């Protein structure tokens, strides 16, 4: 099984992004997804900057994939999409398509990754998507292991499966920016306030329980999805790639712990103990067991 780092979901200062990926280059991660997937107003990095980061990572022996924006609304969003598709067709890099508009620009021209928000929930849809040239698909966040097992049985030959296995989950997208709303600013004049919150803004219930994280137009889980204890089950199900999602702190350590556990250098229990102090919030794994996503269940043996 390979280890991937998902796209950076937050808005950071340019220098911070470059140093982050310098550190990532030194970890045992195999695949790195790059690019702005959340908001087109975030412009600390231009496409050319992402490409220079890609070059550094390639040099370090990583596979690089460029992810497209999840919510594509404006004409200029579509123009960016066309540019990315064209570069991919030239063989510059592979693309993770995060909406069907991106799929339309890539299909039949070049292999691509079907991202986690394309809503591939069943075998007939996976098989149909495979005819368009997907090399890999990322399981929807909501999908549990029992459904994944069925998907794997019906998976077409040559298509890899990736699972979002660590991080705060990107649960929802909106036209509205909740960070700007919090600051009483209109989105068109947001003053890029999300750059002040490198791990997003915590939304709490009126009992002060951490519930969701506001990240611009994206809403995330406060709890951290952590499927490290399930890595053996994922391997047995034929999962090809395990995805870790970036945070401002400790991402290289998390990647290293996943790698150590998955290669048997560290026991899973020891890796989980080491992670306890590195996670930004409590762990959850409910989705994996077909339960509410925020629940944390004891690891259970696989169903036969």
């Amino acid at each position, binding site marked *: 099984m390979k280890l991937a780092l998902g796209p950076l979901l937050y808005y950071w200062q340019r220098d911070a992004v470059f140093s982050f990926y310098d550190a990532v280059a030194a970890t045992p991660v195999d695949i790195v997804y790059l690019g702005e997937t959340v908001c087109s107003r975030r412009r600390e990095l231009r496409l050319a900057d992402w490409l220079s980061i890609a070059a550094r990572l390639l040099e370090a022996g990583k596979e690089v994939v460029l992810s497209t924006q*999840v*919510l*594509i*609304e*404006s004409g200029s*969003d*579509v123009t960016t999409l066309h540019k990315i598709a064209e570069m991919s067709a030239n063989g510059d890099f592979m693309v993770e398509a995060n*909406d*069907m*508009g991106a*799929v*339309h620009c890539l299909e039949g021209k070049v292999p691509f990754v079907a991202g986690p*928000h394309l*809503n591939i*929930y*069943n*075998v*007939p*849809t*996976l*098989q*149909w*998507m495979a005819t368009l040239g997907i090399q890999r698909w990322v399981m929807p*966040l*909501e*999908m549990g292991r*029992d*459904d*994944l097992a*069925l*998907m794997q049985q019906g998976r077409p030959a040559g298509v890899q499966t990736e699972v979002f296995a660590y991080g705060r989950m990107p*649960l*929802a*997208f*909106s*036209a509205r*920016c*909740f960070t700007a*709303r*919090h600051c009483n600013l*209109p989105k*068109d004049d947001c003053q890029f306030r999300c750059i002040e919150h490198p791990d997003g*803004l*915590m*939304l*709490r*219930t*009126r*009992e002060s*329980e951490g*519930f*969701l994280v*506001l990240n611009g137009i994206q*809403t995330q*889980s406060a709890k951290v999805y952590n499927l490290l204890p399930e890595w053996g089950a994922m391997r047995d199900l034929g999962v090809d790639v395990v995805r870790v999602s970036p945070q401002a702190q400790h991402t290289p350590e998390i990647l290293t712990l996943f790698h150590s556990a998955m290669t048997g250098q560290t026991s899973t229990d020891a890796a989980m103990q080491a992670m306890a102090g590195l996670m930004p919030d409590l762990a959850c794994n409910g989705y994996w067991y*077909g*339960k*509410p*996503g*925020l629940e944390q269940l004891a690891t259970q043996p696989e169903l036969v």
Partner: protein
Amino acid sequence: MELVCPAGSLPALKAAVDHGADCVYLGFRDATNARNFAGLNFDEAAIATGIRYAHDRGRKVLLALNTYPQASSPEVWRKAIDRAAQNGVDAVILADPGLMAYALKHYPELRLHLSVQGSATNYEAINFYHRHFGIARAVLPRVLSLTQVEQVLDKTPVEIEVFGFGSLCVMVEGRCALSSYVTGEAPNTNGVCSPPKAVRWVETPQGRESRLNGVLIDRYADGENAGYPTLCKGRFDVGEDKNYYAIEEPTSLNTLELLPKLMKMGVKAIKIEGRQRSPAYVAQVTKVWREAIDNCRDNPHRYSAKPAWMSGLDKVAEGQQHTLGAYHRPWK
């Protein structure tokens, strides 16, 4: 411009038809549609009666099969397509590509609409479904501004349907798993959001609390109107800001005043939300919108949303208030 109205039951369907709906949309009584609520929707007999009632009066019936077939039971959704075709519905409203491929293969004559749950927010996405499945119409998610709607219309041969009135999803439809994060069930997978079985009302010394699977969604002081705990419409704390609608107020979308612009742009149909609402709601909203559309078509330059229409709609609106939502840029 067609007026597309909701029906969660046979009486609601009749109310829609009697008050001037051009099309009525409905769903089967199971998880194949995005309003999978107890006591709602149509069994075999009701759907046949409903279709006859509508067709006798020259109206159309659209069937929503707009959840995503789940890995363990794709055949349930396929059988729903079979039943829809056999019942003679005028179109099916779908979100899942695999299901569209099935419909096209087995019922090439069946008219396909792309559901709002398909999350197609740009012309490339809409044209994707058109190219592969020949979809005749797409329902736009409630995230685009008027200018963006126009940009889509310019670049696609597909008919465009937009939401005109009803409860407002602040998230992109088809891209929201908040409900399953809290309750295990969500629109994509189960056709529900913040399902009633997960709701608990608790009287406490601090006030009346609404909880969703234990998570505190809102707390109401004495005399405050308590709304249904849809989880994105609760009051929360963010930083120093306490107790505010951090995501969205309980409010309804109402685009009556935009009608001339939408008509001029070439929007083909206006959708009214609310299959979970009563026949009285359907009657009231259909009546107002019928009058407005006719008025706007006959006198587009002199059209304005009449105060009586607005107050008639506010009476049945969520939170008794309305918004232009994403059509109006500052909302974002």
